[in-house]
């Protein structure tokens, strides 16, 4: 009895360790997504990856003849994950920045994103007031808006507010609703998603320049980047692109 149990445990240990690599061994490209980033990437009711980027990439993959699988990941470690070959691409509402360009290659821009402040629906405060009076502002860790606010607003010390770091933008919105923070800084698309689901409103932009979303791949994978770019261009020219935008309520 005891021996059989031991045997079972050893086998299951071995199996558990082989399940992981099995994922990356077949020739399917893995797209790392931040599943906490609706409407670009999230998990639907049945637990399947869904979202604007997910569906767009599915179309591109089909068009360019490769297979893709979407893997939810920890956002602030997603670029190291890409470079550590744990995933092969990132199509999950990632802003193209110079700093990131040092690490990865980006596709052509496919969506212009504006950073906005989200506050309570009945809050009368303006952007300037929100970023003042010792208020607290929430932001997702490892995002471009986090970095920009730190460098341009906090470090220069012009404004009187403090920054709180969250696991995801929706958690920051949750805390706006809780009244713990005055506002959350985030991309406008997920902000719109939040407005639909929570008693919050978009107050406006806070001076951060607009950014472009692009898909990221490893520097070495130029062939894959070409495929993605070709596919993306084709997709943006076809009516499905507009359909997707309508479906996920972008614009």
């Amino acid at each position, binding site marked *: 009895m005891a021996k059989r149990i031991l045997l079972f445990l050893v086998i299951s240990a071995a199996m558990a360790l082989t399940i992981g690599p099995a994922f990356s061994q077949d020739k399917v490209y893995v797209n790392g997504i931040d599943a906490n980033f609706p409407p670009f990437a999230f998990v639907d009711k049945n637990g399947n990856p869904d979202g604007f980027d997910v569906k767009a990439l599915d179309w591109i993959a089909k068009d360019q003849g490769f297979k893709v699988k979407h893997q939810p990941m920890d956002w602030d470690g997603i670029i*190291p994950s890409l470079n550590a070959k744990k995933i092969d691409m990132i199509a999950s509402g990632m802003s193209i920045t110079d700093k990131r360009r040092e690490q990865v290659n980006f596709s052509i821009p496919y969506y212009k994103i504006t950073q906005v402040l989200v506050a309570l629906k009945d809050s009368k405060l303006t952007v300037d007031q929100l970023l003042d009076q010792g208020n607290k502002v929430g932001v997702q860790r490892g995002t471009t808006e986090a970095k920009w606010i730190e460098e341009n607003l906090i470090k220069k010390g012009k404004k009187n507010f403090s920054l709180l770091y969250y696991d995801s933008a929706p958690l920051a919105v949750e805390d706006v609703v809780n009244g713990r923070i005055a506002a959350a800084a985030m991309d406008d698309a997920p902000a719109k998603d939040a407005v639909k689901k929570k008693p919050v409103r978009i107050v406006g932009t806070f001076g951060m320049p607009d950014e472009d979303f692009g898909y990221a791949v490893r520097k070495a994978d130029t062939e894959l980047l070409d495929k993605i770019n070709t596919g993306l261009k084709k997709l943006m020219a076809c009516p499905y692109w507009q359909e997707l935008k309508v479906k996920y309520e972008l614009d």
Partner: protein
Amino acid sequence: MEELLFIRQDVLPALLRGLRISLMLIIPSGLCGFALGVFVGALRVYGSPWVKRLTNGYVIIFRGFPLVVQLFIWYFGLPHIGIYLTPFLASVLGFTLCSAAYHSEYVRGAFQSIKGGQRLAAQALGFTKLEMIRTIILPQAFRRAVPGCGNELIYLIKYSSLAYMITCIELTGEGKVIASETFKYTEIFFMVGLIYLLLTSLATLSLRRIEDKLRIPGFDNYNP
């Protein structure tokens, strides 16, 4: 060279800042957790039946829910019933309640390990119940609980790394923020790990000294 400068100018100050917050989390949580644990442990042994049921229920829930889940509930859940805690307070509350549940297990075991004769003898001498617990039972139970509770403190040091998930940016959080900005995960988490190792080793050593100080001849043959 550039690397070293970067570590000295950016990484170390951030990690030290984080360490300070970590300590500010660990110390009050450790103390309150232990105090509450002793209280709950005593209630679980000496309380009336419904007090026992209540405290046992508390322990089942707080030992059964993962700490991450508890922290999320304290921070994001309590506002649903109108209680707003700062990230720091929510972390301290979460750590305190969770570690108190564990402490109470060790304390309960310690209380139960004390032979009935000790109580009888104290009662026969005319001790009041409170005096008996204070002067006869507690000093003995305390010694028996120290190894287990000490372990729990080490756990607490390690689990304090979860506080960043509810925006209380402590050592691990600072590490994560810099790592995601600089992409130097390996180096930074290596340093973070070293700091924790230092903390837990220091705690282990001082706990061992406390145990030695409290040692009484013939009293240490106890297997939890």
